[in-house]
């Protein structure tokens, strides 16, 4: 079942009279529970593509359809709600809310979705235990290591059971051990929760664990390989 379709997506930036074709006629689709990596050299358009998929940016042309909804047809506030209910984000620099504890950060999306407290608590503990931070629920981000913060970010992204999770270079700021642990957790959650994961990455460890690798060059898809 397709959860995401990109049809002839283009993104062109106009700066100082120079046109930059960041994403060039990309057509892709992703099925439920995929574990896909988008790779390519710096400037190849990975992050731009991820931002377009996440509705953080709008394509110059083409369509992005997520579970039947065309993102370009949504108003700004509808798009925010759509992201809240369908997409989880994991950022390179974690981007947890610094004034909230690990538990509160994970709970945050569910609070926005108005989940009952009991269900929020159950889901939060389940996810924090799954990412190995069941004993750090009351720690604020500043008291956690980079790896731990990124694990909280993954738990947050999965909290409301989104259709898919977009992770932009999630291991870039982590040491080898922390990166491996994080990837194992994500793979496990992908398997258990049947949530699609799409990474943009340079990290060969991510590529090694991915079930599908999409290579971009100059904004174009040059290869799309399923490894299973």
């Amino acid at each position, binding site marked *: 079942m397709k959860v995401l379709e990109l049809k002839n997506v283009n993104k062109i930036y106009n700066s100082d009279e120079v046109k930059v074709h960041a994403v060039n006629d990309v057509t892709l689709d992703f099925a439920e529970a995929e574990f896909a990596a988008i790779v390519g050299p710096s400037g190849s358009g990975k992050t731009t593509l991820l931002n377009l998929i996440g509705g*953080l940016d709008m394509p110059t042309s083409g369509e992005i359809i997520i579970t039947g909804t065309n993102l370009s047809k949504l108003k700004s506030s509808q798009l925010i709600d759509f992201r809240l209910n369908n997409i989880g984000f994991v950022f390179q620099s974690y981007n947890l809310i610094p004034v909230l504890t690990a538990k509160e950060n994970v709970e945050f999306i569910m609070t926005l979705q108005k989940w009952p407290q009991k269900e929020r608590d159950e889901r939060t503990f389940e996810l924090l235990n799954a990412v190995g931070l069941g004993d750090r629920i009351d720690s604020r981000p500043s008291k956690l290591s980079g790896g731990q913060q990124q694990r909280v970010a993954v738990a947050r992204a999965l909290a409301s059971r989104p259709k898919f999770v977009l992770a932009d270079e999630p291991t870039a700021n982590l040491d080898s051990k922390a990166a491996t642990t994080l990837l194992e957790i994500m793979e496990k959650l992908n398997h258990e929760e049947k949530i699609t994961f799409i990474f943009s990455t340079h990290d060969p460890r991510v590529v090694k664990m991915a079930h599908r690798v999409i290579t971009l060059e100059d904004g174009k898809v040059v290869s799309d390989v399923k490894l299973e």
Partner: protein
Amino acid sequence: MKEEFKIAWRNLWRNRRRTIITSASVFFAVFFAVIMRSYQLGTYDHMINNLIESFTGYIQVQHVKYQDNPLIDNSFDYNDSLASAISEIDKVVSVTPHLESFTLASSGTQTKGAAVIAIDPVMERNFSDPESKLVKYRITDEAVTRLKHAGAIPDNVLEKVKKNLGRSFSSSARLELELGLADEDNENCMPEILKCTEVSNGFLTANDEGILVSDRLASYLKVAIGDSVILMGQGYHGVSATGIFPVRGIIKIPSPEIDNKLIMMTIPAAQKFYDAEGKITSLVVNLTGKSDRVLKTVKAKINILLPDNNTVAKTWYELNPILYQQIQGDSQSGQAMLGLLYFIIFFGIFGTVLMMVSERKREFGVLVAIGMQKKKLKRIVTIEMIFLGAIGLVCGLLASIPLILYFYFYPIVLKGDLANMMEDWGWDAIMPTAWFGPYFYWQAVIVAFMVVLATLYPLRKIGKMKEIEALKG
């Protein structure tokens, strides 16, 4: 909402030092604004109490021409039923008749122009209470000699007494204050000083034919109690007014200008003297409320009660336009100062907001990216700003309360040149604070306005924010 309050409160303390500095600046602005305004309004109230409540009253009923031409010809018939009807109006404390005119006062070779205020000695107790102004203590050469002979008075105390030679006082407290003795000297010497300087005095009875003379005028005319003063002037419709009046008492008026020229007598005596049977020049009305609204309401009600178009009710500021303008001018300059203070504080708050927005641009982007509606984010920032203003505001108001209360009940008593200057203006030389009123609550409105104004910036930024750009930081 609970979640929004929690995040806003925690955000506030992310940069503890900056929050404390910003709150402290609001605190000091509110504190000083309240205290300054309270002193300013308290001084006006005091001035109004001194001059208005003792002389003109809050509202006067006069002949329509009297203010422009204050002659006894522009008097009107006193009517008990009118006074009673005015007394029934809500907020009216007292209604007191006055007959005011001018005369020449003469004793021996001394003659001087004097202002005559004729009163009802009983009713006047509820208004200017001249009895409380009777001279009770006077420092004379005789009194100093008696003090010297008493032996128990140290030289330094005697020197201080001599410095006030020739002065009169209507209360022991005022004498004590003017001498400014050390606590120990005060305790040991005051009973003796009061004993040696005490003078006997008298007051008017209801139909008395005698007069009260102000202290400085009495000194000029060289009259004391029991002496007689000849008054000569023009009576009603140009008749000649002459009479000889025994001095019943000497009164001390704080304002030297008035103390130099005041004679008080009973209304029947004045009506006889001026040949103005049944006439008065004003009905003085005192009120409990002092607001503009109360004044206007009572004035309108009195005007309805007036029997003809020859009489009219006027408020104290219509009767004292110069004093009113002086108060207005001073008040406006005070408000301008406070405006300047708040203007500076506003930029302090705005600076904090600018830094906050700049530091948290990326965070705002993340919050919207993961699904927080911008209106919710705006609410959090607004709550944060309200907290920021409210902490300083509430602390500033709370801190000012004890000071206002203390100085309301125990005003600062001025001494020296400043005190003399204030007395020259006709004020008692004290600086009380004003009781809590709109000026107090207005600080909350001003701070709220500043916070709202400063909050517009982050709200606009959030409204226009593009997530993709905000995420880049």
